């Protein structure tokens, strides 16, 4: 077992276990915490794959931003001590069944497919390259999605403010 494999298995174990805990725990704040673990482990996978910039974004934005946002909203809407009611069996079983069948189906397909090995050489992705790509509008340039995303973010920001604003009446 190479170190890569070991690290991968470690991260994936954390991810799977905490994912499951996230969706099953009945304390909402714990769920958020477990989600944080999952996201951090994902960042670890990115590191493993040598996408350092991406991992950094994952950590700051996801782990740092979104999870904090979620925790804030939890604090706004629920009591921390409160235990969520358990879902009914009529709800659990179909959902579990569908999820298992879906997962099994995907895994079987994945295992049956013969992926080609990697061909090209690799070079280390540096931040400069990323930055140039983001503002490049030629081949492999992402200027347009970048702009779109920025507009989206502004829209979301404004939208969130408008939605969450307390009505006068």
């Amino acid at each position, binding site marked *: 077992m*190479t170190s*890569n*494999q070991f690290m*991968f298995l470690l991260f994936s174990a954390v*991810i*799977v276990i905490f*994912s499951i805990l*996230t*969706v099953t725990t009945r304390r*909402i704040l714990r*769920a958020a915490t477990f*989600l944080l673990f*999952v*996201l951090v482990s*994902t960042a670890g*996978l*990115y590191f493993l*794959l*040598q996408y350092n910039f*991406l991992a950094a974004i994952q950590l700051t*934005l*996801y782990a740092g931003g*979104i999870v904090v*946002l*979620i925790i804030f*909203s939890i604090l706004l*809407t629920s009591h921390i001590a409160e235990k969520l009611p358990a*879902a009914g069996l009529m*709800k659990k079983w*179909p*959902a579990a069944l*569908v*999820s298992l069948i879906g*997962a099994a189906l*995907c*895994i079987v397909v*994945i*295992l049956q*497919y013969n*992926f*080609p090995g*990697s061909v*090209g*050489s*690799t070079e280390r*992705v540096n931040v400069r390259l*990323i930055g140039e*790509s983001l503002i490049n509008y030629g081949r*492999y340039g*992402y200027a347009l*999605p970048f702009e779109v*995303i920025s507009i989206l*973010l502004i*829209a*979301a920001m404004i939208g*969130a*403010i408008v*939605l*969450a604003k*307390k009505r006068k009446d």
Partner: protein
Amino acid sequence: MFEGVPLSWFLILSTVMFFVGVYGFLVRKNLITMLMSIELILNSVCINFVAFNKILYPEHMEGMFFTIFIIAVAAAEASVAIAIIINIYRRIVNIDVEKMDEMKY
């Protein structure tokens, strides 16, 4: 060049994570936990992108960029979703999804 871990491992991981997210989305009643499940789903997709990129086409960067964009979209989505949740909470002092069936029929 990334050695040792086959692509299928990544895919299986993301599959498991994805369906755990789906399960969560289908089962949890609380809107915020549902949102968390969505985050899980999104994350699993991100892992796929990244893994494909790294293992199959290491000379390109599409997977990474899409992941970045997904994260951005996820952030936007989370903020809007939370705004909506808070709004709903203000109205019905509850964020139980089963109680929100006014749009039926």
